[in-house]
């Protein structure tokens, strides 16, 4: 069988080796691997920038960097994490797992898949190069310094020269994401194995399908926003310039019309991952599959009518305020359904606590914390006090780090055996989990307190009364950053195939087509579609 398969392989696949294999790859597994490594590298780069931020905030007063540079760090940290780490990370999981989960031989548009990945490194090369601009005498300040939300007129009239690099790189990331999303939709619509009806698809596929629709709906709006910025900066238009008859507040509406669905783009695939892992280790079917699908779809639809909750303090008519407040609160209903279903799945299950399960449970608890602080922020009068404080920073780091990023760790530990053929190192994995769990809470939990006490975000300095908390927050930050080196070691060991050999189904409660193929998954899978009963 193996020789026959190998001969068959050689026949129509001139397996290129070395650099060419990766540069010209149209294989969903290779491209998935590229995405995942890229995402992890950007996670470490973004993390380094965060370390600069936390080093400066270790003590009150100015010690290490000047405020101008500090602002560049917060901006590029946010952009690298959102567009470089979280989004490509999930696209990597989608590439690897969606064809395996629906019994497809590959993604539907493999060449576009190659292109959508290879745009990304260049987009980030352009963005990150801006940090070094002034070192080469090209403009001051060096990198974009207006925060990842790039509000006009800060980014239009007052933005540094490198803002144009930023605009170009956002355009490229947008094109990459849109192509990735189109690929997912076409694959899911056209390449499902016979018998794999929509309502039989694993939830990870469902959540990604809905995410892909969100991406196609809002990434072009982001492209529109940066295009307007570009023409405002160089071609004499006044979309966001009050002097020319435009309105800077319009920028915030356009941006958050993209921005709010964007935050769900970063969390819906996480819901799918956790919905795959919890049933495996609770050894029970997922509780309320259909309600999970409908809840995901409702969250996605609601995400289009809540954007102005980011701008309550800008001022709007009372009716508008109430509308956006109630709609935002309404999102907690489908989200609550999801959390309930995860807990109900675990309820009276034969639970074991392997590494993926540990991360998934941590996700459920800590993501819910982040969701609750989001509910507090939704209350308009309360938001007036919390707006632009560290409370907001705590909120979105709980949903993005202990939410999205934890789910990706869970997914990595869960599927690494399938990708590499070896089990992830248990000791390093345990150290990674416990070390991250403790440090991440030391890092982000006290931010709630300093935020409620009034510490504003995006400043290089703070009032003396916040000194103790900030010291511990910084310690948590360094600790969390260093903890990720355990994960780097786990990944490298798996890539070098060092470790216990993994069975085709390494987790005994695991269900789904991806476990039908051997570990590591062969280069080509499901060339003859499986029949799903």
């Amino acid at each position: 069988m193996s020789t026959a398969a190998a001969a068959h392989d050689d026949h129509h696949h001139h397996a290129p080796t070395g650099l060419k294999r990766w540069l010209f790859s149209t294989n969903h597994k290779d491209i998935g691997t590229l995405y995942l490594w890229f995402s992890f590298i950007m996670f470490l780069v973004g993390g380094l920038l965060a370390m600069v931020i936390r080093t400066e905030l270790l003590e009150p007063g100015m010690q290490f960097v000047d405020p101008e540079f500090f602002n560049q760090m917060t901006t590029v940290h946010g952009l690298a994490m959102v567009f470089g780490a979280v989004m490509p990370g999930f696209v990597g999981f989608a590439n690897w797992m969606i064809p395996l989960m629906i019994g497809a031989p590959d993604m539907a548009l493999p060449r576009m898949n190659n292109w959508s990945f290879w745009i990304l490194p260049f987009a980030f090369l352009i963005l990150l190069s801006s940090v070094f601009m002034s070192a080469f005498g090209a403009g001051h300040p060096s990198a974009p310094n207006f925060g990842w939300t790039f509000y006009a007129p800060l980014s239009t009239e007052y933005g540094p020269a490198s803002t144009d690099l930023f605009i170009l790189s956002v355009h490229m990331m947008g094109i990459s994401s849109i192509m990735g999303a189109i690929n997912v939709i076409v694959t899911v619509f056209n390449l499902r194995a016979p018998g794999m009806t929509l309502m039989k698809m694993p939830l990870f596929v469902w959540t990604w399908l809905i995410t892909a629709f969100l991406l196609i709906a809002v990434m072009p709006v982001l492209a529109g926003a940066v295009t307007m910025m570009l023409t405002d900066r160089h071609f004499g238009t006044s979309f966001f310039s009050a002097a020319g008859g435009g309105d800077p507040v319009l920028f915030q509406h356009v941006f958050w019309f993209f921005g709010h669905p964007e935050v769900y783009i970063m969390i819906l695939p996480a819901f799918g991952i956790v919905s795959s892992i919890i049933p495996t280790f609770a050894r029970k079917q997922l509780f309320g599959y259909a309600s999970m699908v409908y809840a995901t779809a409702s969250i996605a639809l609601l995400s289009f009518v809540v954007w102005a909750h980011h701008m309550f303090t800008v001022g709007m008519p009372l009716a508008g305020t109430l509308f956006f407040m109630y709609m935002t609160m309404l999102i907690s209903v489908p989200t609550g359904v999801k959390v309930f279903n995860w807990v109900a799945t675990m309820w009276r299950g034969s639970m074991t606590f392997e590494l993926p399960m540990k991360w998934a449970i941590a996700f459920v608890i800590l993501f819910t914390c982040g969701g609750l602080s989001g509910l507090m922020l939704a209350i308009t009068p309360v938001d007036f006090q919390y707006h632009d404080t560290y409370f907001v920073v705590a909120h979105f780091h709980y949903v993005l780090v202990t939410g999205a990023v934890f789910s990706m760790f869970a997914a990595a530990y869960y599927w690494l055996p399938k990708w590499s053929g070896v089990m992830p190192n248990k000791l390093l994995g345990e150290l990674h989990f416990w070390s991250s769990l403790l440090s991440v809470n030391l890092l982000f939990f006290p931010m709630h307190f300093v935020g409620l006490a009034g510490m504003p975000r995006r400043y290089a300095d703070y009032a003396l009364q916040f000194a103790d908390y900030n010291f511990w927050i910084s310690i948590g930050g360094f600790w969390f950053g260093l903890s990720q080196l355990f994960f780097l070691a786990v990944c490298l060991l798996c890539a070098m195939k060092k470790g216990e050999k993994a069975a085709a189904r390494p987790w005994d409660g695991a269900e789904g087509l991806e476990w039908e193929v051997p570990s590591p998954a062969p280069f080509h899978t499901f060339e003859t579609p499986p029949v799903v009963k």
Partner: protein
Amino acid sequence: MSHDSLEHRNKRTLRKLLIWALAMFGFAFAMVPFYDVICDITGLNGKTSSTASTEGPARTVEDRTVTVEFITQRGQGVNGDFMSATRRVKVHPGEITLVNFYASNPKTSQIVTQSIPSVTPGEAARYLHKTQCFCFDQQTLGAGERKEMPMIFYLDPELPDHITTLTLSYTIFDVTDRVAATNDTVINNNAVAQ
């Protein structure tokens, strides 16, 4: 069925999704006029009408007094004075009132300015009618010039009862470069036309 091959179906789905992506790109730009309409209806951004009101007030409500406050701010590039003669007036809805504003240009060259109004609370914006305003046109200030710029307004008698105070803010911008750029374009276009 033969023409409905997998490749064909993939291309069809791809095409639909690409069209959708392009449409959403267009939607971003469609938000601009849409926002203006919403602002006109709701007063979201507090902008008053940019043209002079041609009709006078229907009546004057003598038994109601509303405080109108004035705020002036200098935008990027303006370093002269910009202020109103008075900080606050008490008016009856329907009463025509004149307030003088002053702007000065300490520079040694002429500048062109544009002032942008904004009313708080925003919902009051469409009840503030101006029969004359320096904000309707660009104002040219010669080198060292100090200019008196009158603004004549009245409040609509229909102003909602719960509004007892409203604030009219003006930000003055130096648009000299912008005007120069437009003139250049006009000159270039004329040159092309000839």
